[in-house]
């Protein structure tokens, strides 16, 4: 089955997820939640994987730390990848582990040439350890940092060129970061190398309760904004259909409600793939 539009898997939706007949539906999980010895988590993933393509989306590798990735964590990832054979493995352009402590977030850093050297090396180490290509995702940003030497789009493009990694473009993160730091989201997306983009994330954000629209928070706790849908449409128009994931991690609605957004994304992909549309554009 070719994955089209997918959903972040929620254990409370297990039965509906398994029973759902939608063509092209796939699921994504954070591997960290399945790094356990046994039990219902892994059993559930086994069942899900029988019928559906799966993607592993890591949050704990801390690639942008000024240190090589933790070999223990790489082995844990490798075991899950060998067992579940995901069609994609992705991580973030961010750091979370430092000084032996795991900070449960995706933290920012100054995008310098030196940082690029370090992160490119970390991506290579990871790809070697896992024996496969990985995708790198753009994070949502909240803090302007003086001293960036590359734009994020240039930084990601350079990572692709040096390491052969692919990109996971989180359109909502681009929208949120552009809003918070004051850049143009469409220009950012236009600058990414089309051939490297192998997955797209879509999610909802929430204005900060104190600062309002000036500070958008990537809560994954609301419906996807129309402006983000518009950016997705524009991106797909340029690069063609790619697997799109609907992420929801807070205020989780019934499965059917998630499917509505998932089906909307599937519709866009189908439209982009149809030959009739290509003819119209020719």
């Amino acid at each position: 089955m070719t994955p089209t539009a997918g959903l972040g898997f929620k254990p409370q939706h297990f039965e509906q997820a398994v029973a759902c007949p939608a063509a092209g539906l796939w699921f994504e999980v954070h591997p960290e939640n399945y790094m356990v010895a046994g039990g219902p988590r892994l059993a559930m993933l086994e069942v899900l994987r029988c019928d559906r393509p799966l993607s592993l989306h890591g949050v704990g590798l801390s690639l942008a730390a000024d240190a090589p990735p933790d070999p223990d964590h790489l082995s844990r990832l490798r075991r899950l990848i060998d067992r579940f054979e995901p069609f994609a493995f992705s991580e973030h352009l961010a750091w979370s582990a430092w000084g032996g402590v795991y900070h449960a977030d995706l933290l920012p850093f100054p995008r310098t040439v030196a940082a690029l050297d370090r992160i490119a090396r970390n991506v290579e180490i990871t790809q070697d350890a896992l024996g496969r290509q990985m995708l790198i995702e753009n994070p949502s940003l909240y803090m302007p940092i003086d001293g960036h030497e590359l734009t994020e789009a240039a930084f990601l493009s350079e990572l692709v060129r040096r390491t052969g990694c692919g990109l996971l473009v989180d359109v909502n993160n681009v929208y949120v970061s552009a809003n918070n730091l004051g850049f143009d989201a469409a220009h950012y997306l236009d600058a990414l190398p089309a051939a490297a983009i192998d997955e797209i994330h879509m999610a909802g954000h929430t204005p900060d309760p104190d600062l309002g629209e000036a500070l958008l928070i990537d809560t994954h706790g609301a419906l996807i904004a129309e402006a983000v849908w518009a950016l997705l449409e524009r991106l797909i128009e340029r690069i063609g259909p790619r697997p799109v994931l609907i992420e929801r991690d807070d205020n989780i609605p019934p499965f059917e409600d998630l499917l509505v957004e998932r089906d909307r994304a599937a519709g866009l992909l189908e439209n982009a793939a149809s030959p009739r549309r290509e003819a119209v554009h020719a």
Partner: protein
Amino acid sequence: MLDLSAFQDAFVSALRGAGALEGYGDPHAVEVGLTVYRNTVAKGVLDALAANYPTVERLVGEEWFHACARLYVREQPPRVPMLVEYGEGFAEFLDQFEPAKEVPYLASVSRIDRFWTEAHLAADADILQAEFLSALAPEVLAALRLRLHPSARIGWFAEPAPTIWRLNRPPATEPEEKSADIRWAPEGVLVVRARGAVETFVLDAAGFAFLSCCQQGATLTDCARAAQSAAPDADLGALFGDFIAAGAFAAPNARQDAIAGFGRADSSVRLRRTAI
């Protein structure tokens, strides 16, 4: 050129509230951003601890739990990104935590919450079937050293912590009056995930002595002797039968078996941010 390590050192200190992140841009904008990261990091780990200790939180209330959890997190922050297993030393922390002494059974309850998490995440294994034992000659049976199921956890408490735990573990909705009915005596507990879902059983002195002996690798004869000396009038046959039915023992050849018992609020990593 900015040094990445120096930035990360400064960022982590600022995250912990030890001063501002100076020299990296407009102080106000930096502080606004830091607050988002600070809140997200704090909430992620507090949520993970609360998900793994729901009975403790229920007993002391959210406000008390959060105040206590913040101190615990500062002392024992997560070292690995698998937050599903976070909070290993929380019971020992509560043992030493002065305000917790007002609730003398709190640390014991936290140990049972921890047993639940460990049982939930433990390795799979087939359970020992009664038929296997009935095929054995009596002298073989007497010398048999049974292995507890890999998910099995046992404990003995000076207070009726297992009963308190069972009455309060969410989503239990037992009326609070029931607490008046608790018989104030020592109790043991067996927590095991033998058939998919985690189950708990309250143990008497004989039951705990039997399983504890078994856990140490003793023969069935020695386990029975220990149970008998803990409670001379114990019905050992019934006790052993109950443990087999509960799936307390692993089959000699373990294999995989699991599913069900999921779908509760859990401590999974979420890509969720928290506003200022």
